[in-house]
């Protein structure tokens, strides 16, 4: 009846006999009778594989796809076919965490390679095996800073980071004695003057995101000095695709680099899975959260890989661990590793540069030809924010004609009426962007 359950009636009888009971029910005798479930679960009976396929098809068809110009933390880039094929190799996806190193060298080595790739991109010295997403990575990075600067209890967070990151941080620290304070922005980028005014030696960490939620790139010249003069740690969150063109976190003097690797080989998938990356300098290695893979040797002297520095982790340290994280996003991290290895630095620069060029093309057409106002005339990578009159209606109209024109920022900032953040990747063609402009022209009339 159930293709995942191999027990035949004959097997069951033989097994019960060996156990020395008459029925399966007897095996549940330790459950007190008053709570034993006597009625069936109110869930419809099981169905065939083909019926499942049909039901899931029906659900998927209730979601609509369009030509997407949406970003704000999730991006539709090109994904090489090899990524999906490799992620479907059963010995990867049907494995557990690589506790038994001798039969888990494949996953361990892939994590070691992922750690290396993240270090190369961010310019930092060490990386872990992955965290859940860029938003929870921010909480973990702040925790590292707080654990390093034990007496400091203030954390300064730029007002231009992703509002969801901000909310995740607020939730994370709301019941412990850490104060999260916002660094005001000026013209929609972090104000260095405000930072200078706010910071003192009670600050453990300063968190800035570039490109920021509006898409603008933050010029972080001078930031690290101010932060370090006050003994605080600088955490910089970046869309890693931007690092193909823009300065890395290490270039800005950051102590901890974080972000989400979704743009590398992972589908947008309604927001998950992504992968949180975190990397830092060797001084902070032992403050890192989660799994880390290290190189070692086996008894024959052969190179081997193994989960290492585990004295930081929950299964050893319990309540004194650096983090509670156990399962992370290993397979998705492998996906991003495959992506980076496949495209290489040349390909990454190409994807990154093309996203930049195309975004600037659309920006020019929208501001120069349609006369739309930019929220701030700032530098940007592949995402920018414009004021589109009656944006709610415009976005719905455009969506109904197959163009997902951007993210209305009023969903995050009620005061920012009609601000729309538009993202462009290398996947979008000139033709699609021209269609965007034409449609918007018609809709605005």
């Amino acid at each position, binding site marked *: 009846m159930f293709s995942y359950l191999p027990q035949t009636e004959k097997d069951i009888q033989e097994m019960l006999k060996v156990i020395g009971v008459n029925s399966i029910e007897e095996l549940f005798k330790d459950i007190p009778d008053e709570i034993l479930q006597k009625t069936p679960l109110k869930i419809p009976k099981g169905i065939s594989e083909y019926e499942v396929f049909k039901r899931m098809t029906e659900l998927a068809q209730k979601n609509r796809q369009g030509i997407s110009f949406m970003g704000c933390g999730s991006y539709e880039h090109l994904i090489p076919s090899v990524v999906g094929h490799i992620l479907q190799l059963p010995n990867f996806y049907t494995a*557990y965490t690589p506790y038994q190193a001798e039969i888990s060298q494949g996953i361990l080595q892939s994590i070691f390679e992922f750690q290396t790739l993240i270090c190369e991109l961010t310019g930092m010295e060490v990386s872990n095996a992955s965290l859940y997403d860029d938003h929870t990575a921010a909480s973990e990075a702040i925790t590292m800073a707080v654990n390093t600067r034990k007496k400091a209890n203030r954390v300064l967070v730029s007002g231009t980071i992703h509002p969801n990151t901000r909310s995740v941080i607020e939730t994370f620290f709301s019941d412990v004695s850490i104060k999260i304070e916002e660094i005001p922005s000026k013209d929609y980028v972090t104000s260095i003057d405000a930072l200078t005014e706010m910071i003192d030696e009670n600050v453990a960490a300063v968190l800035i995101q570039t490109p920021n939620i509006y898409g603008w790139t933050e010029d972080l010249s001078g930031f690290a000095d101010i932060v370090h003069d006050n003994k605080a740690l600088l955490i910089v969150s970046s869309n890693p695709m931007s690092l193909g063109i823009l300065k890395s976190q290490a270039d800005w003097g950051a102590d901890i680099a974080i972000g989400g690797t979704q743009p590398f080989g992972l589908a947008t998938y309604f927001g998950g899975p992504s992968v949180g990356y975190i990397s830092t300098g060797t001084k902070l290695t032992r403050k890192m959260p989660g799994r880390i893979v290290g190189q070692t040797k086996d008894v024959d002297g052969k190179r081997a890989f193994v989960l290492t520095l585990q004295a930081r982790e929950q299964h050893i340290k319990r309540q004194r661990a650096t983090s509670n994280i156990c399962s992370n996003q290993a397979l998705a991290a492998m996906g991003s590793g495959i992506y980076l290895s496949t495209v290489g630095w040349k390909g990454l620069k190409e994807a990154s540069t093309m996203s930049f060029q195309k975004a600037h093309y659309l920006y020019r057409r929208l501001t120069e030809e349609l006369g739309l106002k930019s929220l701030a005339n700032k530098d940007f990578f592949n995402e920018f924010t414009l004021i589109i009159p009656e944006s709610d209606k415009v976005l719905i109209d455009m969506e109904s004609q197959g163009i997902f024109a951007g993210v209305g920022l009023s969903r995050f900032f009620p005061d920012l009426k009609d601000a729309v953040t538009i993202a462009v990747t290398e996947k979008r063609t000139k033709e699609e962007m021209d269609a965007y402009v034409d449609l918007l022209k018609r809709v605005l009339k």
Partner: protein
Amino acid sequence: MSNKLIFEVSSVGRTGYRFPLIDVPNIPVKDQISTALLRKSVPVLPEVSEIDIIRHYNGLAKRNFGVDEGFYPLGSCTMKYNPKINEDVANFPGFAGIHPLQSEDSVQGFLEMIYELTSSLCEITGMKWGTLQPYAGAHGEFTGMKFFKSYFKKRGELNRTRVLVPTSAHGTNPASATIAGFHIEEIQADERGLVSVENLKSLLADDVAGIMLTNPNTLGLFEKDIIEIARLVHEAGGLLYYDGANMNAIMGKVRPGDMGFDVIHLNLHKTFSTPHGGGGPGAGPVLVSERLTGFVPTPDVKKSDDGYYFEYNIPDSMGRISGFYGNMAVLVRAYSYIITMGGDGLKKASEYAVLNANYLKERLKKTYHLYYDTTCMHEFVLSMKKMKEKYGISSLDVAKGLLDYGVHPPTIYFPSIVPESMMIEPTETESKETLDSFVDTMLNIYEKAKNNPEELHTAPHNTAVRRVDEVLAVKQAILKWTAE
């Protein structure tokens, strides 16, 4: 077999992917952005052709073991079969290609799935409502502890700062409660391997927020006194948290809600068949009883006459705990599994998981020392202590010995309250033949321990690498490849 790193396979000038040519004016980047922002350093990334990348990862896959290859009785991890239809449907473009910030109207399929899956999980656990956002079990535990915090804040009982955790609990329990702002106190197990009700009584006070329990516990034993435990904790004004890591034992048999629990997290990558992916992505939904539903994270998903929608306006919400809505690709697979199995199939799955475990336990206990000799649920724990005393063979040696037989070893040295422990969880998807063959292997290993212990001390012999030096790994701390 080559074990080159992808960086060592690299050859300057190769690429594994061809991007389309640029079709917009190619204006120099430096003319469009401040040069102070531009990167100058060049990262060292691999340069490989498409076949290089495929061969590299296929080589790695051969050096890895998964459920599809063989028996994987890793205790407390529920390594059941990962159904293939779930992989197929999870790759539908109508799921994979959706952006998290699209209009509600354009994501009705996802919202319906979230609503239906939450409802089914509530029915299975006896809870009222919850959230699918947590990315993993530990993330679910943290979310669960935030429910505790929110509840006591609302009641003005900020003095409740202690959380009780059994000594046999998963390490994530105390770690999660600590980062949520609680202090941990350990409860002892009694001679039965169950929570000591006497010890619990002595710890309960008006500063206790509650207790975190796994039931069946990590020894595979059902906490028979659960009704009494729930009554005591509730009378003391506390809440009960259920770690759903072992939910695979009880679907359709007993519900945590009926046991008296207020909060539960589930590991969809255990009980609900989603693949573990070598360490994630998983999913750790949290379900709660009626009095805690007001604290769910934002956004919640609700149903109206016009369809499904996100609810952001939740006055007492704990706030956001994930960037968006969780590991959706995992949730899709779990939903697919639940409709495949149905209420009747889920119950059968738990019954057979318990049957398989008891069968294996009975057969092995004739040779190996079964630490708590009683009916078990979905898993049981052996102790290699006597074997170590007699033959010098430890749990680790047995585990490494198993590697040569194409079996993934059980969990070892956890729970730590059993000396030289080996925790075995066969799951329901394994046949009697597989279990019998595992017993034969274990008997073989026992004979070796007696007659040829050296072979076990030096095991494994047939794996891609042999026993690895963990101390050296810590000492040299080589955590990335470096160009020579």
